[in-house]
C-alpha cells in the first residue's frame, strides 16, 4: 500500500479552525491527511503534545494560529512564534527532520490558504517518507499505526 502521511494539526479555535471550516463549507478540495485537534490558542499547544504526536505515530505536526497581531488573547501566538522554532531545534537534535514540524498562520477568512498549507505539508511529508522512531517499537499506544487508520 502506498504511504499516506499522518499529520496532526493543532488549530486555534478563533482563526485557523474557523478557516478550516470555511474551506469545508466552500467545498475547497484539500488533502485529507491532517487530523485536526482544536485548541483554544496556538499558544496552548504545549511542546510535549507535539513530541507525543511523533511518539504515537504522526509523520508530521502542523500548528496553525491567528496572524500576528490578531490573537484573540492578544499575544498567545507570540509565544508560539518563539516556541515552535525552539522546538524544531530540539526535534532536529532527536534526529527528526525539522520539516516534519510546521507553523502557519491561517485566519478565519483564509479557507483557501488552509487548503494550500495542508496540501503543501502533505506533499512535503510524502516526499520525506514515514517517520520511524525506536520509541515506536516500545510504545504501548501504537493504535494510530494500526492497519487502515
Amino acid at each position, binding site marked *: 500500500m502506498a504511504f499516506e502521511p499522518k499529520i496532526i494539526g493543532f488549530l486555534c479555535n478563533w482563526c485557523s479552525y474557523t478557516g478550516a471550516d470555511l474551506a469545508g463549507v466552500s467545498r475547497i478540495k484539500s488533502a485529507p491527511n491532517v487530523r485536526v485537534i482544536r485548541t483554544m490558542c496556538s499558544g496552548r499547544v*504545549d*511542546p*510535549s503534545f*507535539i*513530541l*507525543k504526536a*511523533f*511518539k504515537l505515530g504522526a509523520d508530521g505536526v502542523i500548528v496553525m494560529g491567528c496572524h*500576528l497581531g490578531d490573537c484573540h488573547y492578544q499575544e498567545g501566538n*507570540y*509565544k508560539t*512564534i*518563539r*516556541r515552535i*522554532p*525552539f*522546538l524544531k*531545534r*530540539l526535534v532536529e*537534535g*532527536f*534526529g*527528526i527532520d525539522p520539516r516534519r514540524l510546521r507553523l502557519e498562520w491561517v485566519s478565519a477568512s483564509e479557507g483557501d490558504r488552509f487548503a494550500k498549507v495542508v496540501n503543501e505539508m502533505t506533499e512535503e511529508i510524502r516526499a520525506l517518507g514515514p517517520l*520511524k*522512531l*525506536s*520509541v515506536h517499537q*516500545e510504545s504501548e499506544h501504537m493504535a494510530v499505526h494500526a492497519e487502515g487508520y
Partner: protein
Amino acid sequence: MAKPKLALYWAASCGGCEIAVLDIHEKILDVAAAFDIVFWPVALDFKYDDVRAMEDKSIDLCLFNGAIRNSENEEIAQMLRRKSKTLVAFGSCAFEGGIPGLANLTTKDEILNFVYKESPSTVSNNGGTFPQVHTTTADGCLEIPELWNTVKALDQVVDVEYYIPGCPPQPEQIAAVIGLIMSGGPLPPAGSVVGAGEKTCCDECARARKEKRIKQFHRPWEIFADPKECLLDQGIVCMGPATRSGCGALCTAANVPCRGCYGPPPNVEDQGAKMVSALASVIDAHEPEEIDRILDQIADPLGTFYRFSLAHSILRRVEKP
C-alpha cells in the same frame, strides 16, 4: 518479631546514591537497628546467589539506584523485583535514566568505537580489541554483561512502587522517607514520587525574581552573576522552572544554575519540552530573525534540558541513521 528486611543495589550508577545513604549520619544506626540488611554490594559481602536463594517477596524494602544499561543491570532488577515487596527507584538514574541516560544521545557502536579506537588516549589498540560478551580461554568460556544500545530507567523494565528523585537524593529527604516507613505510618499510593516537593525548584530558591525578559543568554562563566537575583533573569539557563522541588535549591544558593536532577515537576511528562515552553515564554523578541539569534545562544539544548531525564523522556533517545 523478625526485623523487616532491607536491600540496596546499584546498577549503572556512580556510587553517589550510596554516599547519600551514609550521609544521613547517625540515623544510619537507627536504620541498621530497625532493618535486617540482606543485600548491599557496596558495603556488605553478599552475593547474587544469596539473593537468588531468598523466597519471593521476602525483602520488605529495596532501594535500587542506577540506570539499566546492560544485561546484568536488567537481570538483577528483575530478580530484586521478584524478591521485594516494595521496590524504590532511588535517585535520578533509576528514576529517569540520569547521567548514564545521556548515552541515548548516541549509539552503542559510536561509544565503543570512540573508547576503543578513536579517543586521543587510546594509543595501543592496534589489534582492534573490542569487548566481547563471550571469550574462550584455555580454562573455558568467560562471559561479561552485554552493553545495550539504549539506556533505560528502572520502571521501563520492572514495576516500581516509589520514586525518590535527586542526584543524589538529599540525605534529609532520605531520612524522612525511611523514617516514615519505620514508623509504620500510612504510605502514599504506589507510583508516587516521595522524598521531594510538589512545586518547582524556583519555589525553594531564595533569589529575587522579576518579570523575565531575556534578550541575551550567557554561559555561567561569561558574566559575574548577581548573587541575589534570579539566574534566569540574568540570562543564565537555569532548569529551575522545569524541575521538581525537594533539594532546597542548593545549586542556585552556590551561584550554580539548576541542572534539573530532581526531574520534571508534578504532572509534567517531559522535562525538556517544559523547558522549551518556559524559555520561549520569556524570550523578549517578536521577529523571527531576532528569535533565531537569541536561540543560537543556548548551547546544547538537548543535553542541557534532558541532562538527567533523556531515557525517561517522551522520545527516549536520539535517532541515528
